């Protein structure tokens, strides 16, 4: 039984249309004209307990609107949703006890007080039994190295330290589901790594369901086996990360370093993607030709110093999906 289920979820916002200039501003003030825009359009998906799902989309795709509906602070225009058996906006407080939330851009810690005080307050808000609280705090403190700055006022923490604190804060009450919104934004490589390890361990140890929205697809590659791609308020892909790579990552790049300069380079079934000095990137579709055939042709025609094959990363696959649309995934370049 899914822990999160949405069926044809839809959210329409009404906003004032503003025409440019002072006249437009005045017109909007006295005789506003409204425009309706669907931020989320017929989004249906189901998430099983214990899954880590990457919820991915460009800015304004409807990610945070969906998250707000799942956390119960936004009422959908139509459609149904259930989170851990509850309709979130009808049972906001009970739903809040089931979920944990981390916003990369926003802290839920008390700015002026030591980390420890914020944790204490959260213990009281979520009514976590003292023993369970101590146990969780000890465990998270180990995993995230919190001890050294536990008594430092939050305003004096670095971004990495603050985010580690925020993660512990979101998990202290053993939520069934955590929503992570851009959790690694602005962090350095080490801090990103610590956070990703934490997420994957909590998920493995406690079976916590994780919904992850991020721009950093490395987060997704590292953590999620499943992704839901959303664009313009619609789901354009929902499935295994691997399948995405299989289906849409049909292009590979052959990076060739030539031993001498050629005026023109032409290889069958490959397109010159870029050319910098003697290094040329040739893109090809693995369904049209094989790397082996390509390499053989290049070796026959030219004198070569070095050669390498580059697999597409998730980022470039997703970028192509947004640019070209889901339907054109099968078309050759």
């Amino acid at each position, binding site marked *: 039984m899914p822990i999160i289920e949405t069926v044809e979820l839809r959210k329409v916002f009404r906003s004032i249309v503003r025409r440019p200039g002072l006249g437009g501003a005045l017109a909007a003030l006295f005789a506003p004209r409204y425009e309706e825009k669907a931020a989320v359009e017929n989004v249906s998906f189901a998430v099983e307990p214990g899954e880590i799902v990457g919820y991915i989309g460009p800015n304004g795709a409807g990610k945070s609107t969906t998250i707000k509906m799942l956390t119960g602070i936004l009422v959908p225009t139509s459609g149904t949703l259930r989170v851990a*058996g509850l309709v979130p906006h009808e049972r*906001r*407080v*009970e739903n809040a006890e089931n979920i944990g939330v981390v916003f990369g851009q926003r802290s839920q810690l*008390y700015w002026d*007080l030591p980390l420890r005080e914020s944790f204490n307050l959260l213990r009281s808000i979520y009514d976590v039994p003292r023993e369970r609280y101590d146990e969780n705090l000890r465990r998270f403190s180990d995993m995230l190295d919190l001890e050294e700055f536990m008594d430092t006022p939050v305003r004096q923490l670095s971004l990495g330290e603050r985010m580690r604190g925020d993660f512990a804060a979101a998990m202290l009450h053993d939520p069934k589901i955590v929503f992570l919104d851009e959790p690694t934004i602005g962090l350095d490589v080490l801090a990103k790594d610590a956070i990703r390890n934490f997420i994957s361990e909590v998920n493995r140890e406690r079976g916590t369901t994780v919904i992850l929205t991020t721009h950093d697809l490395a987060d997704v590659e590292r953590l999620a086996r499943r992704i839901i791609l959303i664009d313009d308020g619609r789901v354009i892909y929902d499935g295994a990360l691997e399948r995405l790579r299989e289906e849409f990552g049909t292009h590979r790049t052959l990076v060739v370093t030539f031993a001498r300069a050629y005026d023109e380079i032409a290889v069958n079934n490959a397109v010159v993607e870029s050319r910098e000095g003697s290094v040329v990137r040739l893109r090809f579709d693995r369904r049209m030709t094989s790397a082996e055939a390509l390499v053989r042709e290049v070796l026959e025609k030219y004198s070569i110093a070095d050669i390498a094959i580059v697999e597409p990363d998730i980022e470039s696959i997703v970028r192509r999906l947004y640019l070209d649309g889901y339907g054109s995934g099968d078309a050759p370049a």
Partner: protein
Amino acid sequence: MIAARPRRRRRLAPYWEVMKVAIAREATYRFGVFASLAAFFMRVYLLRMVWLALYAHNAAPRDLPLHTILSYATVALLMGLVLDIDQTRALHDRLHDGSIATDFMKPISVPLFFFADGTGEVLFRIILLVPALALALTLVRIDVPSPAVAAAFALSFTLGYFVGFFLNFILNCTAFWTLEISAVQLIVTWLTDLLGGEIVPLALFPAGLARVAYALPFAAMFSTPLCIYTGLLQPAQYAGAMGLQALWLVLLAAISAVLWRAGARRVVVQGG
């Protein structure tokens, strides 16, 4: 299977914690404490100078001998130490920067959360009353009323405190729609200072203006308790005066509830 937790009765422990945290937070700004104490001393001194100068050149009004007006002005400043606090400023701040959304993601009553936070701040500031009161008693030698009058004053002050609380809450709630409220807040501060009788007793106003001012909620904050303290109101008039305070309290609380509900609805429907 996921069984929904049974609905629990509202626990007060979190709000108690929030209040304690707010006290601890205020305590981290020690400079602010000393600065507001210094500001208090200065205002007491300056107002005393003004009244002394005015009374030196004019005949004292019949009901307001010099020692009464000095008590009035000093007690008004003492009350201001508590009443001038915008307890629910956090609501406006969090609406302004959008973090109100995360407050709604917690299993708490959001208005109670802000109420507890503001109460903590007020409780901390009350500490300031100790040195301030000592100064008022020793240097200005304010009148000390009889225990019965003091009790009436305490009750009236409490009513006034909550009138002020809801007035501020209403202003902070308007940030649901406007996001920015500082101009309106400034106007209300001026109105409270002048029409509330915080600086000049309403008894010195022209009769028509005084009648209007007495009926407004600003007078319910300052003027009514002050008139009880200084004896400008006789015990026979207490019930009527405090009844008016209570009326404002109920009215403003009702408006607060309506505004909060509409504002929260706006957040959940329009996304803030």
